[in-house]
């Protein structure tokens, strides 16, 4: 990854200090309690450049070049880093209308994204276009509840991927939103939507029991929660057995702090979402304990610490 680190360090003293704080916490952790750092985005919506400096609310915020510098800096300080995106990479600036997602995917590849899931707007230039743009991707698209059989995406998305980060084995899966009523059929083609709760539980079960993952992360484009009974991250969290963390999207919500729910086994499930447009980069540092217990049915809790200060 060709990143100009020296220029970054020279010019960003304050920002560096802000980035250092969580790293110091991490340094205190002993080897018996390793840390996994998850960096995440959602609904970036083709926002390659920062919002223009026109005095509006988001003026100067976002932009892939600034995000790339931030990620590179964090990677230097934290050893076990996963960089994830929860979908809607496409649509929202003229870049997408002209280039159909090519620079978006290239930028994510340069930043070293480890995985992403698909949002409804990623179908906006057609499923064939999305499949085509993936030729520029150095990261996998994870989604377990879209059946792409007979579409240009067949064989190009995966239900999950396993990452070994130091001692920590991490399983990452993805779930997509109901397409009907949201994505015109001529764009999604023969893609068939399946129940995200059933599919996510199936995949997470395999990741835990067969692949012995220590941590299971679900990238979700379902949305954080709704006033009606539509499936959301909140409902998904409560209906799962093995998922530890849901990285959310779609509702463009800026979370003040990660939300915590009890799953079917009374274990904690964390949900986080960072608004949209790459205005924020989410960071979650999970500290692990070693548990001698073989009994996977045992429930566990996750203590959410204070927000890391600047």
């Amino acid at each position, binding site marked *: 990854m060709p*990143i100009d680190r020296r220029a*970054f360090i*020279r010019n*960003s003293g304050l*920002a560096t200090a*802000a*980035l250092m704080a*969580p790293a110091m916490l991490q340094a205190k952790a002993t080897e018996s*309690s390793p840390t*996994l750092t998850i960096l995440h985005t959602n609904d970036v919506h083709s926002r*390659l*450049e*920062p919002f223009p400096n026109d005095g509006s609310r988001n003026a100067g*915020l976002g*932009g*892939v*070049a*600034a995000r*790339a510098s931030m990620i590179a800096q964090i990677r230097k300080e934290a050893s076990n880093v996963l960089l994830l995106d929860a979908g809607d990479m496409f*649509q*929202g600036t*003229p*870049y997408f209308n*002209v*280039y159909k997602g090519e620079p978006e995917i*290239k930028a994510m590849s*340069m930043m070293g994204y480890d995985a992403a899931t698909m949002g409804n*707007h990623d179908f*906006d230039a057609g499923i064939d276009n999305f499949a085509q743009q993936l030729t520029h991707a150095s990261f996998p698209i994870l989604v377990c509840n879209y059946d792409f059989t007979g579409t240009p995406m067949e064989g190009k998305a995966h239900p999950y991927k396993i990452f070994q980060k130091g*001692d*920590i084995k991490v399983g990452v899966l993805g779930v997509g939103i109901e397409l009907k009523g949201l994505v*015109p059929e001529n*764009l999604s083609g023969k893609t068939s939507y399946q129940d995200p709760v059933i599919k996510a539980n199936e995949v997470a079960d395999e990741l835990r029991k067969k692949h*012995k993952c*220590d*941590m299971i992360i679900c990238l979700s484009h379902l949305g954080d929660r709704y006033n009606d009974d539509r499936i959301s991250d909140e409902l998904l969290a409560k209906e799962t057995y093995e998922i*530890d963390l849901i990285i959310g999207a779609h509702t463009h919500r*800026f979370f003040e702090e*990660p939300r915590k729910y009890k799953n079917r086994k009374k274990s904690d499930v*964390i949900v986080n979402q960072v608004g949209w447009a*790459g*205005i924020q*980069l*989410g*960071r979650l*540092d999970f*500290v692990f304990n*070693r*548990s*001698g217990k*073989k009994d*996977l049915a045992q429930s*566990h*809790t*996750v*203590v*959410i*610490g204070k*927000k*890391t200060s600047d």
Partner: protein
Amino acid sequence: MNSHLRFFLIVSLVAIQACTPPRLVPASLNYKNYPVTGNLEPDSSVLRMISFYSDSVNKKMDQVIGFAVNSLNKRQPEGVLGNFFTDAMMEMAARRFNRKVDVAVMNPGGIRSYISPGDITVGKIYQLMPFDNLLVLQEIKGSVLKAFLDHTASSGGWPVKGITMQIKNRKAVNIFIEGKPLDENAVYTMANSDYLANGGDYSEMLRPVPQLNLGYLFRDALIEYVQQLTKEGKPVSANLENRVSNAN
């Protein structure tokens, strides 16, 4: 602690671990959602990659597709710019869906800029319609259309095409569809944005009405409409023709 004892403890620990392979369990979490700000020195190689694309995106946005002789502005109950929008909706929907369209309605809040005399660029159309709304058709019953037009009347009058109406006591009265009084039992084909069709701008009554959707961007319809006017040698304009007026 003497070195023998220490060695013994370490060996024991390793032995215990070997017997019962421990699983790592997430126990605590620190978090921070960083603002991505301009204070960070942007990554130069990413910047270089983007600039390759931004040059031609800007070129596309600067592309001149038409011209205006007069200013077009939003106005209620009826304005030239709104009429331009609904004229374009009706024409381009009929063309793209290949069928007769009876009426078109637009919410004034969806029109985000104005047109000044001079060149019309693609970028200007993006300013007028930055949203990725789609142009859809709805087969709407006369009684539901009446309720929708009452809603537009109660908020001061919205751009329409194929309709004339008056606003009285915040209700739509004297409604004519293509010259004939609105028939509450008839079914009309209405060009609409998917935003309103999905109940946006408090148009809840439209939500149950089925949509025909071809994934046709509203903005693309406007661009194609302007290009067509240019081909015919016409400026971007529309007429004020008492489509919507206040009853005396």
